[in-house]
């Protein structure tokens, strides 16, 4: 049974959980969202700061404040590692790749080139109840990014949305 468990709680995940990257809420930001997992109550407040650089939109910063389990916390940390500094297009592609991995019920082979530490979540995909934990901050980021796109340049306080 411990092998099953170890597949879920990869060392990488526990490391991110204990030492989360890019934690805390920072200025400036164009959009802030608050997402909740209604099943268990895990919550994340997440801000996105986009910038224009040489004609492309770049994810300048993603900052967050989250309460939740190891999986949801580590996933937020990995998310920020993967998207901060990337052109928005590329970041969205990474998002799609992570989504595909999580919804694959354990049948999708993760691409380390794209997902880096994110590949540690491959084991999570086998635990349907935990997929929501892993996706919480990713969904929040997607939502915030969409809102930032429409309100670019004007920091906003957004209503709760799940």
């Amino acid at each position: 049974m411990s092998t099953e468990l170890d597949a879920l709680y990869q060392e990488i995940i526990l490391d991110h959980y204990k030492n989360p990257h890019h934690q805390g809420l920072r200025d400036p930001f164009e959009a802030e969202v608050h997402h909740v997992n209604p099943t268990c109550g895990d919550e994340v407040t997440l801000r996105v700061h986009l910038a224009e650089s040489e004609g492309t939109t770049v994810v300048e910063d993603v900052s967050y404040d989250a309460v939740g389990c190891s999986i949801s916390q580590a996933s937020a940390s990995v998310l920020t590692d993967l998207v901060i500094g990337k052109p928005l297009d590329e970041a969205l592609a990474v998002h799609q790749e992570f989504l595909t991995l999580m919804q694959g019920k354990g049948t999708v082979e993760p691409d380390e080139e794209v997902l880096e530490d994110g590949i540690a979540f491959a084991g999570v995909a086998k635990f349907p109840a935990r997929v929501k934990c892993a996706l919480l901050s990713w969904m929040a980021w997607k939502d915030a990014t969409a809102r930032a796109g429409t309100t670019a340049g004007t920091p906003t306080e957004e209503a709760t949305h799940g």
Partner: protein
Amino acid sequence: MDGLLPELEVVRKDFPILERTLAGGVPLVYLDSANTSQKPQVVIDTMVDHLERHNANIARAMHQLGAESTEAFENARDTVAAFLNAPSRDEVIFTKNASEALNLVANTLAWATGDLAVGPGDEVVITEMEHHSNIVPWQLLTERKGATLRWFGLTDDGHLDLTNLDELVNERTKVVSLTWVSNMLGTVNPVARIAARAHEVGAIVVVDASQAVPQLPVDVAASGADLLAFTGHKCVGPTGIGVLWGRREVLDQLPPFLGGGEMIETVRMEGSTYAGIPHKFEAGTPPIVEAVGLGAALEYLGHLGMDAVHAHEQAITAYALEGLATVPGLTVLGPTVAAERGGAISFEIDGVHPHDVAQVLDSRGVAVRAGHHCAKPAHARFGVQSSTRMSSYLYTTPGEIDALVEALHYTRSYFKLG
């Protein structure tokens, strides 16, 4: 006979109750399927397996049993969505029966704001052939909100009278709610045509498909309905489960119905926010094993093929109409052409009250319904207080229709009508 389900005798073996004998050793001839259908073994076994091996609460339970139970429940939602050709699984809401589904709509409309709000001056349109479950909710809504209830009348041959369609469905109309197939007259209504008019004036269309889903291939996307209700127990599923399908845009606009576990996003004492569809409308522990049973039921129907089920129903109905015509003094209420109707056939026999007809039939094992079939206004329209109703289903044989007809002749002689 053309059109019958292939291997009907094998299909009948799937339904354990059809082997029953009744008082006096008489075999069961079940012709009350519009009231509730019988259940195939696979539905019962699926429920038993769930209760004996996978029982747990859903969503909230994260352990293995919880994951299994959740998966079984959510798979049932997928099955329903596929069966109805629903654009999204999230548009499938589990209720306890069709009545709750219809009330959910009428009840949330009472608290709706914006476009969907119903108030004085607004009109809701139903028909005179509705089941009470598609009448009373709208009476309550319109009475409570000061709106006006109007309805389509019926022609003498049991169709909707659409001559005043354009007047009846007008700019004041907020909702048009009608049955697809009448449970009393059998009539199949032109839902798409009426829906087109309703949409022209910006009304939403609610379809009671309680008798349609068991009998016809139903495609919600093509039907014209904005919301559609049916009930599990009439389509070889268990009691305790019904479905409301609705277009996402409409469901999103409706306020919550029942409040409680599972329908929330977050709860504070000072106020709460709600989950998205379908959970917004599914407060509390849902009918889990019932949804799982319904999933098995719809898979069973899908396996037979709804076209085949429909063809069977049509063949049996035509045969029954012929047989009934041989009984002196018998008058069928509703269309007398099989192609215009579903499998529920209500009739009167001169000189014998429907209760007494049903009683004599029952003594011969023939189970039919007598009374108003929860359609008092439709009975009143035809100047009768009650009727006898036979209703067939996919397991009905021509031999059972013969038994019915013979029993009706016997009934007349029992009451000395010559």
